[in-house]
């Protein structure tokens, strides 16, 4: 970074002349600004994480992870077991739907091109910009009004949130796979489809996994669309997605908005659990991606 500032093509100064001093000053100012920006970004991030950790660890424990909330929210004790299980089920279902569709669409956009592909590309950008609450309202209107609140409805809304993120991330990675590799495959007499499946996708595996995990993390934290679809269920552990379900995010919300100290303690513990869950998913996915490509090319 420092060299970048120092090597700007200005008038060629003699070594040690006034030009050098000016460039050194510019360099110091530039480095300082960048350092400050970095420190601020990292600082805010650490603050959020640290605050959630401090507040969350006050209550997070075995009981929190193994029990449901008390019937009376003002009472202490209980936990978010139903939310944890609900999150895993709803986000799991959404991922199962969104990953093949998203990766498939990205392959189509990047590898096949054409007018339809450009349309898909454009729609993806539009979808990314749609607020999640609108997605929730959409699923509410089309699905919930007919079939009622359910884990499935929640999964559909989350899949809609994840889909454009996965398409975008996968398409970007696919563009980074050198054209030479595709041509090398084709020149061996391998069919285009087989070249994509056996050469291009494995090469892009690490990056695609990262993109999917970002989408999963985003879905884990979504609350608004779930209020309109999965609705929530603070009473008992529901494992059948055909019924209304709680998720971690919904439980954090419902407990946080009560004025009770005990409920807010549970909400903080839930928030911390959410963070840990997302980190765990990411770590596992990275590990799997590394194992699956022979060399760990990424």
């Amino acid at each position, binding site marked *: 970074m420092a060299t970048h500032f120092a090597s700007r093509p200005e008038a060629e100064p003699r070594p040690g002349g006034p030009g050098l001093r000016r460039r050194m000053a510019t360099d110091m100012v530039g480095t300082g600004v960048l350092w400050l920006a970095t420190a601020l970004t990292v600082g805010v991030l650490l603050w959020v994480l640290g605050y959630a950790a401090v507040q969350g660890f006050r209550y997070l424990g075995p009981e929190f992870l193994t029990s449901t909330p008390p019937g009376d929210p003002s009472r202490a004790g209980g936990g978010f077991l139903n939310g944890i299980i609900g999150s895993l089920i709803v986000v799991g279902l959404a991922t199962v739907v969104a990953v093949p569709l998203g990766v498939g669409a990205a392959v189509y956009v990047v590898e096949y091109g054409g007018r339809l592909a450009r349309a898909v590309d454009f729609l993806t950008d539009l979808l990314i910009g749609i607020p999640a609450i609108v997605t929730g309202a959409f699923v509410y209107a089309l699905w919930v009004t007919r079939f009622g609140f359910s884990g499935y409805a929640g999964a559909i809304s989350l899949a809609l949130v994840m889909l454009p993120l996965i398409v975008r991330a996968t398409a970007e990675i696919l563009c980074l796979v050198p054209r030479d590799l595709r041509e090398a495959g084709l020149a061996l007499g391998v069919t285009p489809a087989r070249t994509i499946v056996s050469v291009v996708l*494995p090469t892009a595996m690490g990056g695609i996994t990262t993109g999917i995990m970002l989408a999963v993390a985003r879905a884990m934290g979504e609350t608004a669309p779930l209020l309109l679809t999965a609705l929530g269920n603070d009473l008992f552990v529901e494992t059948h997605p055909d019924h209304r379900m709680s998720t971690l995010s919904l439980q954090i919300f419902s407990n946080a908005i009560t004025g009770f100290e005990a409920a807010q303690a549970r909400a903080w513990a839930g928030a911390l659990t959410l963070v840990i869950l997302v980190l765990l998913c990411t770590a596992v996915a990275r590990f799997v991606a590394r194992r699956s490509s022979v060399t760990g090319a990424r």
Partner: protein
Amino acid sequence: MTYGNRNPLDSLDPTAMKEPKMPPTAPPVDQQAAARFAPARLDVVDLTASYRGLPAVADVSLTIEPHRVTALIGPSGCGKSTLLRCLNGMHLMAPHATVTGQVLLGGTDIYDPRVNPIEIRRRVGMVFQRPTPFPTMSIRDNVLAGVHLGRRRGRGTHDDLVEQALMRAGLWKEVRNRLKAPGGGLSGGQQQRLCIARALAVEPEILLMDEPCSALDPISTLVIEDLIKEIRETCTVVIVTHNMQQAARVSDTTVFLNVEYAGVPGRLIEAGPTEQIFNAPQQRATEDYTSGRFG
């Protein structure tokens, strides 16, 4: 005849997806050898190759004899790579690329819409300027990529095939103990020989090489030149090179292409036995080029 811009990955086109016609079982070894020893002749007739309607190389007619090493030489931009890529249909992989004229492989025009382009690319292999080992595959899987992914012989270990291809590419001794290691971990010269082995494993009749040594050190270059002379026993070689010493060292026939100035298509100036092109060229431009007066 003009052939439209075929989308490179146009698998929506059913003909592009057709499996190449294969013998039902692997032919016995001696028959294989016999097949390998009989590459088809390649005739280029009035070929013009264009990008976005602008011809890059025009009106080329030329015969490439079996078991010969043919060198394509000429100043940069004269269309050597384009001409080479026309010989197995890879030219049409570039966006907005078109071809007119014919490339007859054993008498059949490879640009005839009834011909399966995948079959052609199996018969006419290609090695690129920059080594392109598949980064997620081991050395062994790289060698077998064309065989496995093309399902020519189905799945299997093919230990003999791996050894044979690596031997022919002069890489066997260096990698025999680490066939499971990633192909990307080899040196540049080794990677290029791995790519040659990968191309040879498909047993092509003709091998096209586009400046295969230009990214390599002199020692690797010599190794590759030696192996070119050897693979001539089993297949025809067409090599693009900007290095005239290399053309003189490895080739039997030399084809000189030239372009007057940027913007006009390159043309074939002279083709003939390498000795003649370098010692007694018929054309003034050839003499100027080979004697180093320009280019």
